[in-house]
């Protein structure tokens, strides 16, 4: 289990926009809840839905994918592919019994520190309200 008792949200952030956006939020000292742990990936298109399934299997209370805004992808189209895959995954996760609020995708640009902080705050709140994940590990 994660070290803290608080719910854990795994964040997959693209290096160019959202990771930089989270950096901007830091530089701007925008206070956020401690629930999110960020994993840096080159592009939201790099996020394999398997990573997300794995996170839920291993006990994540939430998963957050964040990338560049559509049309603003560093690699021009990665986030469009991500959007398709993750749209499908979102419905799939819900179907498997994982509450929809536990998986979110956002578009946060490098300059949108404020937006990132708000995404973290609001998602943490929603996930906390849901309580611990009914998650796959309870089946272990």
């Amino acid at each position, binding site marked *: 289990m*994660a070290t803290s008792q608080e719910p854990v949200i*795994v964040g997959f952030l693209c290096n160019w926009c959202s990771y*930089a956006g989270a950096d901007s939020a830091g530089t701007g*000292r925008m206070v956020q809840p401690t629930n999110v*742990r960020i994993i840096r*990936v080159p592009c939201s298109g*790099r996020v394999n839905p398997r990573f997300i399934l794995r996170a839920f299997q291993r006990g994540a209370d939430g998963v957050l994918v964040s990338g*560049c805004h559509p049309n603003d992808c560093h690699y*021009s189209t990665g986030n469009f592919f991500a959007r398709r*895959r993750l749209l499908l995954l979102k419905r799939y996760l819900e179907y498997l019994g994982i509450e929809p609020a536990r998986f979110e995708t956002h578009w946060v640009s490098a300059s949108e520190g404020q937006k990132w902080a708000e995404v973290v705050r609001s998602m943490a709140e929603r996930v906390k309200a849901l309580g611990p994940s009914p998650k796959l590990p309870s089946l272990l």
Partner: protein
Amino acid sequence: MKRVGVFLCWCGSNIAGTVDVGKVAEQARRLPGVVHVEENKYTCSEPGQAAIVKAIKDQRLDRVVVASCSPRLHEATFRRTVESAGLNPYFFEMANVREHCSWIHTDKETATPKAFDLVRMAVAKALRNEALTRGSITIEKRALVIGAGIAGIQAALDIADAGHEVILLEREPTIGGRMAQLDKTFPTLDCSQCILTPKMVDAAKHPNITLYTWSELEKVAGYIGNFTVTIRRKARGVDETLCTGCGVCQSKCPVKVPSEFDEGMGMRKAIYSPFPQAVPNRPVMDRANCTFFKTGKCKICERFCEAKAIRFDQEDSLIEVKVGAIVTATGFDLFKVEKYGEYGYGLYPDVINSLQFERLVNASGPTDGKIKKPSDHEIPKSVAFVLCVGSRDEQKGTTYCSRACCMYSIKHAIQFRDKVKDGRAYVFYMDIRTPGKSYEEFYKRAAVDYGVEFIRGRPSKIFSRNGKLVLKAEDTLLGRPIEVEVEMVVLAPAMLARNDAAKIAQTMSISYDGYGFLNEAHPKLRPVETNTAGIFLAGVCQGPKDIPDTVAQASAAASKVIGLLSHEQMATEPMIARVSEALCSGCLWCKPICPYQAIEAKTITEKIQGKVVSREVAAVNSGLCQGCGACTVACRDGAMNISGFTNDQLLAEVDELLGASRPACAAE
């Protein structure tokens, strides 16, 4: 067993103020693989880096983790440090405990365990880091400049002067762009033509510059140092090699249509050169308006052409060029001021836009420089200049400031006052923005020396009354509604991205913002690069700017190109896609996903039960691949991976965070 060293940075009190670094160090010591943990006040400082080098040597470290600020800030720094100690730089990994932890939390009780989570995730990843080597590619020593306005011309001349070949591409019949349409330039009131046309001639005559006008970008393939560009040379209707530019064809052509160059303020023919100083001095045939193409009869131009250069049957041709770098200088469009119904553009002939005013005031324009009202060709005694038509207006236009309109409208007011001594010039503005050398002084001169009347207020309506135009506005400084009666109104339209900017961007795989302006790689530190290596930006295609800024950016882009082309070879980033041929089934579903066309089928041969057999697998072109990783997700075989962000590394981070045990063999 791998030997990991963990270096925890205090960053003064930036980290240590919120994270109990000592406690994290204590816990980190117990992580598998970690043999050395060290705290430092400033790890990025000279002694901090020296400590890393020393520990690598003393402790025989083969993996290094630094927990400090964002890798976007210091990853490159520490990679160099690690490399200087003889370790592969990609054995380094970073945990961002400042921007992503200490700076955004206030409670040490919760921030400390989070910091430790980030450290152990980084350690888990580092254990799977591999030695990576940068590749190298040969550079094609030739540049393409797209768009031959002042930005493109400047960039092309700079690159050519440095001794490299340049292909200068322009889709209009002539080079020169917007600046060629202007009369004078602020704040010096230099004649635009006088400073531009010599450069146009230089560009045309430069031995290193090949000029393609009336030509468009068709396709861009390849990558930095090795682009293959397809150019469409549109049918000109004229054999450029035979034509002498005598101009007889235009004078004899019976068709008259509004001139684009004169913004509809004057006429041109169906075979035409946009303006007398056009470069190259070769006309083009406008087939849509040509009588021969419409009715099958006429050919007057052909009859009068002594050089026998007219070609009615000419067709578009495609040519392919190889270049190492590309400068994009595609310029801008103007906001359609018709969108402001309340300003009556199109309804009242004497409401015009600023570029039309430039043509009116231009000595080589349709009125020979006399400011005449389009309605009755009389000289107006009063003119109102309205700023921000489409700029800074979320409702109807764009949110941004177009930057140059204040200055050129002040210039217009001065020019009008100069030419019509007893005239009155009004400028309706929201804010006057003069951030440039001698700009504020220019504004002052307009008000003090030229008596231009500045009214702070955006007109709500322009209407006609007794043959005059009335501007209704609130004078926000006086705080009361006003009506000003004038004879002509000039609207300063917002500068917009080209309407096909998105298409251009997609052709080159570069990104663009919500308005269609092309994105620079970093707004402050990489202002002329794009996120696609080898493609650079100059001028308004990147965002509104005036001529001095455009020229500066063009020269900056040129210097980047010159720097690139000065090498024979260049190093490539190793964090790109790679294929495990053993696992690849050759389905190639990765191929359509790649934005860089970096994936191709490749036939390999292998021995199976003593028989040599061949099969197809995916192969990554390391010169093209930029390492986005979209292909890895399309790969169900698990054959495709991104070095530095492998499936194994990313899963290790997830698993470490969520605490599941992994089999020993995967972590050694």
